[in-house]
């Protein structure tokens, strides 16, 4: 049994496991000690000092996040001295902070702004300390860094290194000149940043945010020459409700379609349509590789953050990647060829917008390979947060909208496509199709529970009629790294691996509403699996619109045309 310690916090007796911090122990009596640099998923840093408490017998205030609870300790989290200290720390931070809350992207989610209000700071008593002269890092197509708003809490640094195993940013210089910067200040686009956006979710202020293109999309919508179609990723529907005050995991697929129609998009389509298409191409590719003794394990390629990661960190493993484009890019390619031919709308007048839980998708859309139609296949990528802002701008009463459907044919999808948004979902969807392709039999039970859930790496052995398929699923790039190292060492036992860059999969993506934490991720995942259950068709290859697409246009999976439009190549980027 784990050793226990007894202590008193604010007069309440608490028993807690050894090596618990005071901060964690205080949660047991429902006190969430105010904090900035503390983050539940990251290592302890103890920099901001806002979580200080009084410990009897110790002369100084102690940071509760970095102080281990001891037997007999008597802690007070709420005394005049503590309140004064916390207030002073935030006042000093504000003395170094721009006062542009009105126009700040993080206005509604800023933890510093909220903390200043909660701590009762109603005037700024210190003179402005810093002059705001730091240049913004605008190099990346996905993420903007504004060092002037940075409070040096290091949450972005820690999430980048500890969760994503990337390490694109660090503290540079010392003392009052400290900044969070990239290598030689080259800019995020010129270092090994994967554009995953987890740093945005971790940032307590407006120092990190997505590069927004809302205004370009508005312009396209109001351009009479343009036929603007929109695709929405699976994970968006499980999260966008949160932006309108709904409970995390509220499933708002119908309301979202209705809102998009009201915004003025000409057709409301679904990335899930091409998620089904991805599954078919990918499942056939897998079967092909197994049959012809091709390179195994094959790894999924839907997550653009993951793609950039492997290009930088494991350039010798690129042949393991499925050559399939991500659903977003398949959609762009199909829209500007098949759909354009079907409707007679010229590709140059088609403007394809995609709504993604992801910041890396902004980078992906601009990759030079993604021009199968002759021009950029996906014209604009909006995050969940950006589309929510557009909806708010118009005053649409999102929560009370009547459900509406997606448009045909590119809006038709199956349950297999819905679960793309959760870690393990692509694997499960692919297994549903691969089983039937390999065995020729009908898969009765479509759920593969072994690959569900939020465990970092999930492994399973699946029997396909005598053929044993070994699969693994990783989310968060530090987990992916473990599987990649196995491949490098030649010890990887798997046939097929799914990797999603972001913890939880797309539903925990860098473009999702804030906050996004472990609990909220689980709730969003549950709602996606619920939607899958409710779908009449739950296997990608049974999607009638996809069947028709093959009949009318692509001929068969992995055909020459499919290769041209739906498959891609990768770039060895390296790291040093």
């Amino acid at each position, binding site marked *: 049994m784990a050793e226990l310690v007894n202590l008193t916090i604010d007069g309440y007796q608490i028993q807690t496991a050894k090596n618990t911090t005071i901060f964690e122990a205080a949660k047991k009596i429902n006190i969430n000690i105010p904090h900035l640099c503390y983050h539940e998923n990251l290592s302890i840093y103890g920099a901001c000092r806002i979580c200080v408490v009084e410990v009897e017998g110790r002369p100084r205030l102690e940071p509760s996040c970095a102080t281990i609870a001891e037997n007999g300790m008597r802690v007070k989290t709420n005394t005049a001295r503590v309140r004064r200290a916390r207030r002073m720390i935030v006042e000093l931070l504000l003395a170094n902070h721009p006062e542009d809350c009105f126009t700040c992207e993080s206005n509604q989610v800023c933890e510093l702004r909220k903390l200043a209000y909660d701590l009762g700071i109603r005037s700024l008593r210190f003179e402005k300390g810093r002059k705001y002269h730091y240049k913004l890092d605008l190099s990346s197509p996905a993420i903007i860094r504004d060092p002037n708003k940075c409070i040096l809490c290091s949450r972005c640094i820690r999430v980048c*290194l500890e969760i994503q195993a990337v390490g*694109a940013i*660090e503290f540079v210089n010392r003392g009052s000149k400290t900044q969070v910067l990239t*290598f030689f200040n080259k800019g995020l686009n010129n270092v090994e940043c994967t554009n995953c956006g987890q740093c945005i979710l971790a940032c307590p202020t407006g120092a990190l945010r997505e590069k927004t293109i809302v205004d370009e999309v508005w312009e396209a919508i109001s351009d009479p020459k343009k036929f603007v179609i929109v695709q929405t990723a699976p994970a968006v529907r499980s999260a966008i409700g949160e932006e309108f005050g709904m409970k995390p995991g509220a499933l708002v697929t119908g309301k979202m379609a209705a809102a998009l129609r009201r915004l003025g998009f000409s057709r409301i389509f679904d990335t899930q349509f091409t998620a089904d298409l991805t599954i078919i191409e990918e499942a056939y590719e897998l079967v092909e590789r197994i049959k012809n003794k091709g390179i195994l394990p094959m790894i999924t390629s839907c997550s653009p953050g993951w793609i950039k990661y492997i290009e930088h960190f494991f350039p010798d493993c690129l042949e393991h990647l499925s050559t399939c484009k991500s659903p977003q890019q398949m959609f762009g390619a199909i829209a500007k060829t098949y759909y354009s031919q079907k409707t007679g709308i010229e590709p140059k007048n088609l403007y394809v917008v995609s709504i993604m839980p992801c910041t890396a998708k902004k980078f992906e859309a601009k990759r030079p390979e993604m021009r199968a139609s002759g021009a950029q296949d996906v014209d604009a990528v909006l995050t969940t947060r950006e589309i929510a802002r557009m909806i708010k701008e118009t005053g649409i009463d999102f929560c009370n909208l009547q459900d509406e459907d997606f448009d045909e044919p590119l809006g038709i999808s199956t349950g297999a496509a819905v679960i793309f948004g959760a870690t393990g979902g692509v694997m499960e969807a692919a297994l549903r199709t691969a089983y039937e392709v390999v065995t020729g039999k009908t898969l009765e039970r479509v759920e593969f529970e072994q690959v569900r859930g939020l465990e970092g790496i999930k492994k399973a052995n699946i029997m396909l009629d005598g053929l044993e398929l070994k699969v693994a699923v990783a989310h968060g790039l530090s987990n992916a790294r473990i599987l990649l190292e196995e491949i490098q060492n030649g010890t990887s036992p798997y046939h097929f691996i799914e990797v999603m860059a972001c913890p939880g999969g797309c539903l925990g993506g860098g473009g999702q509403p804030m906050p996004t934490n472990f609990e909220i991720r689980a709730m969003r995942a549950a709602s996606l699996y619920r939607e899958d259950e409710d779908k009449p068709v739950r296997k990608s290859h049974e999607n009638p619109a996809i069947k028709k697409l093959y009949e009318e246009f692509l001929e068969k999976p992995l055909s020459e045309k499919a290769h041209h439009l739906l498959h891609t190549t990768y770039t060895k980027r390296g*790291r040093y």
Partner: protein
Amino acid sequence: MSIKKCRQEFEKIFKKYPDKTQALLPCLYVAQEKCGCLTEEIVSFLAQRLDLPKVEVYSVITFYSMFSFEKKGKFVIRICMSLPCYLRGSREILEAVVEEALCIKPNQSTEAKKFTIEPVSCLGLCDIAPAMMINKKIYGNLTPQKAREIIRRYKQEKDK
């Protein structure tokens, strides 16, 4: 090119410190001393060998004032500006040294790269405050007059 000069010493250090991160500072010392300054090439090499993110190595370098990416003068004059030295007149020492060493400003080098003047944090020489270091040599109990004389001696080295 710069890595070649340090390669042998690096390898020795790598062997001495099995924990790779511990090898970083000694390697940086060697590189700084042998090459006069650090370069992107050196940073990339060390990051790769020590399996660290490049930016982490960069971060360490920018943290310590003894490392730099710019070539420093033949003589690096470090003048302590921390409290004990400051109270005993380090500001006047700095002024005198700046004037004597050909009127360059702090953190700059003379044109011929003879001197670099750096106001620094505590040198650990509080017992002989105010103090300065010229390369690895220590000078304490300074007065502006003494400091000028010391600099003059170094200036004459050119003619030797």
